[in-house]
């Protein structure tokens, strides 16, 4: 029921051959049939429901394919491990790379999956796969994780978008068949206002323009454009509400104390993590923060060390900060890239693409920390125990966010598409 009304609350539900006008016409009947609330009431009630649920997700996306050996699965003493050493973590028996000393201290909250496995070794296809759970096809545009989550558990009453993506993502996955309402809202650089959200006039004059606009629309509405005008005005109202909302200050990191900003480090990714925390706190449901350049075909060890330097403190701070604010239990953090890197070190001291065995890490959102899932063989070449496929990971994320992964959405030619096709929840993740 709440799902249905979430959909109806939307400006533009015309997927799967249900046209909006028919849908809107159908609402009063449906509400009557339900025997209770007006549509408006039901919508508000369901929104409150969703807010109570209050789950959120942060995806820390490592574009390029981070080396598992230099992050969460070091292999000291083996030729494949290279020069990277292991260090102890806060959890006895679990060691991670020396490149992540702060993260090591947060190990009690982290669940490492060392047995991620897929078959895709090309950046675009693997990025698509790890964002959508599907391989790209010409005829179905699968939605990216953030869009799925925004649609399923996003807060329709929020003035801020449900899905915010911070930093440049090279590959253009978006809401696909779910429609533009669930597309990521892009923030190119944490700390700067998002594109086109700054008013170009004073606020009173902006309001004056907004008041004039509908008065210029009546002629067109009367000449057969009623539906278009109504849709247009709804989107404009939403956009105007958003940019004039006090919540826009969420994007302004200068509102944070210097101490808080320093805790996240002064690199862009760290500031992105800080913004992610602020957004989640302000009611955003899904935030994706990008850290790129993990494609270490050359000079893997130095490059990975530098990248881990950008990752380590922000990740540890994010976990601690959410915990301190009481948000960690309801916020699932997912760390991953599109694949891992070859056990064999190439002649350029680099590692190449390796989807057969790689890492993901989860924290918060009911995840049982301080554990490792999966085991590799001695050389880190293949999964010896508990392989976790992409669909398994997606099912697990959905489970953590109380999303029914078997729910079907319709493609534009009326083909039902499951949120996740196949796979099983990795139950141990939740203890």
């Amino acid at each position, binding site marked *: 029921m709440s799902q249905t009304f979430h959909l109806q609350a939307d400006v533009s539900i015309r997927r799967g051959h249900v046209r909006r006008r*028919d849908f809107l016409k159908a609402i009063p009947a449906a509400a009557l049939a339900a025997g209770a609330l007006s549509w408006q009431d039901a919508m508000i009630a369901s929104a409150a429901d969703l807010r109570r649920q209050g789950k959120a997700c942060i995806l820390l996306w490592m574009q390029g394919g981070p080396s598992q050996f230099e992050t969460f699965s070091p292999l000291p003493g083996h030729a494949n491990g290279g020069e990277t050493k292991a260090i102890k973590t806060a959890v006895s028996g679990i060691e991670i790379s020396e490149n992540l000393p702060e993260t090591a201290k947060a190990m009690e909250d982290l669940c490492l999956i060392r047995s991620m496995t897929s078959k895709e070794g090309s950046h675009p296809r693997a990025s698509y796969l790890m964002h959508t759970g599907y391989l790209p*096809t010409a*005829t179905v545009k699968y939605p990216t994780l953030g869009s799925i989550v925004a649609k399923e558990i996003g807060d329709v009453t929020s003035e801020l978008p449900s899905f915010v993506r911070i930093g440049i993502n090279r590959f*253009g996955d978006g809401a696909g068949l779910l429609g533009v309402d669930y597309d990521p*809202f892009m923030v190119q650089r944490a700390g700067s206002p998002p*594109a086109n*959200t700054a008013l170009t006039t004073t606020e009173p004059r902006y309001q004056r323009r907004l008041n*004039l606009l509908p*008065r210029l629309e009546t*002629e067109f509405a009367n000449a057969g454009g009623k539906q278009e005008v109504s849709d247009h005005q709804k989107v404009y109202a939403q956009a105007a509400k958003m940019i004039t909302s006090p919540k826009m200050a969420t994007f302004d990191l200068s509102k944070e104390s210097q101490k808080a900003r320093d805790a996240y480090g002064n690199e862009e990714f760290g500031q992105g993590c800080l913004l992610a925390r602020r957004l989640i706190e302000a009611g955003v449901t899904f935030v994706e923060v990008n850290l790129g350049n993990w494609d270490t075909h050359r000079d893997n060890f130095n490059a990975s060390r530098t990248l881990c330097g950008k990752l380590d403190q922000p990740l540890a701070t994010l976990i601690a900060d959410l915990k301190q604010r009481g948000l960690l239990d309801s916020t699932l953090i997912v760390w991953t890239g599109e694949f891992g890197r070859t056990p064999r070190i190439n002649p350029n001291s680099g590692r190449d693409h390796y989807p057969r065995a790689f890492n993901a890490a989860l924290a918060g959102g009911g995840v049982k920390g301080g554990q490792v899932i999966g085991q590799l063989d001695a050389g880190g070449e293949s999964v010896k125990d508990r392989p976790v496929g992409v669909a398994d990971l997606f099912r697990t994320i959905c489970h953590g966010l109380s999303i029914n992964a078997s729910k079907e959405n319709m493609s534009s030619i009326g083909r039902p598409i499951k949120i996740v096709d196949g796979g099983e929840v990795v139950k141990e993740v939740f203890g």
Partner: protein
Amino acid sequence: MKRGWNFQAAGCVFALAMMTVSTLASEPAEVAAQADKQLRTEVPFANTTKTSPGRVGDEIFLRRISLDLVGRVPTPEQIVAFVLDPSPNKRDKAVQKLLADSHYGENWGRYWRDVIMYRKTEERAQLIAGPLEDYLVKSMNENKPWSQIATDFITALGSAEDNGAVGLIMAQQGQPEEVTAEVSRIFLGVQIQCAQCHNHPTDRWKREQFHELAAFFPRVSSQIRLMQGQPPETKVVANDEQRGPMFRRPMMMRRIGTPEHYMPDLKDPQSRGTLMTPVFFATGQKVPLGTKDADRRGTLAKWMTATDNPYFAKAFVNRMWSELCGEGFYEPVDDMGPDRHATAPQTLDYLSGQFAASGYDVKWLLRTIMATEMYQLPSAPRRGPEEPAFQAAVAQRLRADQLFDNLLHVLEASEPAGFGGGRGGPYARAGGVRGQFSAAFGYDPSQRRDEIAGSIPQALAMMNAPNFNAAMRGTGRTMLARLLGEIKDDKGLVQELYLKTLAREPSQSEVTTCLLFVKQVGNRTEAFEDILWGLVNSTEFLHRS
């Protein structure tokens, strides 16, 4: 766009005759009249009087054809000249004039670029969006027959730089299954790929038939090489040698083609599968195993574009009709069957037959559809599923490039140059201002138009984009500053701004609203800046109605 339109009253008598007596008429008008007649036997007018609501006025007609053909609104001078032209065949003449304008090829070339690129499964294919667009723009302007364009795409070989038609194969990274799906979807309007993995639940195609079609493409591969400091190398190559892998597992990356296509064994995906002979499902024609790539694809192109293949002409007519009239005989436009049902199938058959007989002449078809009464009906909101079809034109949201060009055109601004500037299309983020604009406003043109929704980033771009707001100022070297100086009379300025942005005169109540607004604001420059902002942000500006 500083063209003059010399509408002459010449040919009046002939034109009058054309409107009434079909025997004297030129072919498009004749076919259009017949199509209208056929359409009304299939879908009569359902209003209370059971009669046609008539054709739209000159202003709306001119805006409609201008947006549909050259992707931008007419200038005030063009509107005035057209409205005052007494010639009875001025509508057809205006259509022909626009068909001869080079913006026509640009507008439709970009449309087809989007049809292909919105379905790309290879992100790096964005690199060849430019050459693909160039090929299409040129082909459209030359009025290359649609059959020739299809043939160019199906048989494409070589580097993108030399041959933009490799774009379709490259967008699908040369994967035979994906290329097959796209060729069938775009040129035949048949989504046979649904039978790729299993027999299709609603269509009668069998899995074998899909893979028999894929068997025309196994020898092709797409190669993209990115080397630091050098331009990317992008090409489609064919492999007729018996070297390299003999087969590949499903979805495996392929760098070089294989001699034959195998249908994967669903129970054992790692095995070789079943060897497939190339067969064209629509006609049952086949080529033997071992046929060279050029013969395979060349033969397929010949069979696909032959007049005895009913799907080819219908797919194109259905798509163009849908773009121009707001609703297709089949929807979505690229999903025609065989077990889907058309609204007014005989009208589609008739027009498709005529289109094939014209030698797949694209400009002829556009001219014909634009001459129909159906095309020239007034707009109404999109009908509900229970309401009868084809009672009115339906407003269409402008495509990203059309909207962008209109903004530049109306505001008399020039396109900012820069890295990658001038290229739109999906995900063209790095491509300068147009690219950013496309990222926000672009949509897949094969999608049902009532599924395309406006978005918050779009509203924000229209309301607040700094470059467009700067161009809307009433001071400095802008269009508005010039008009504020030239036209001292407020009413005259309101009229001019309406003509410029919406290509029509304002109604009396609109004039009153605007004049009252100017008075309330008390600052002429500011007030007209606000009015211009309002017109550009209106629903009407974003739509072709």
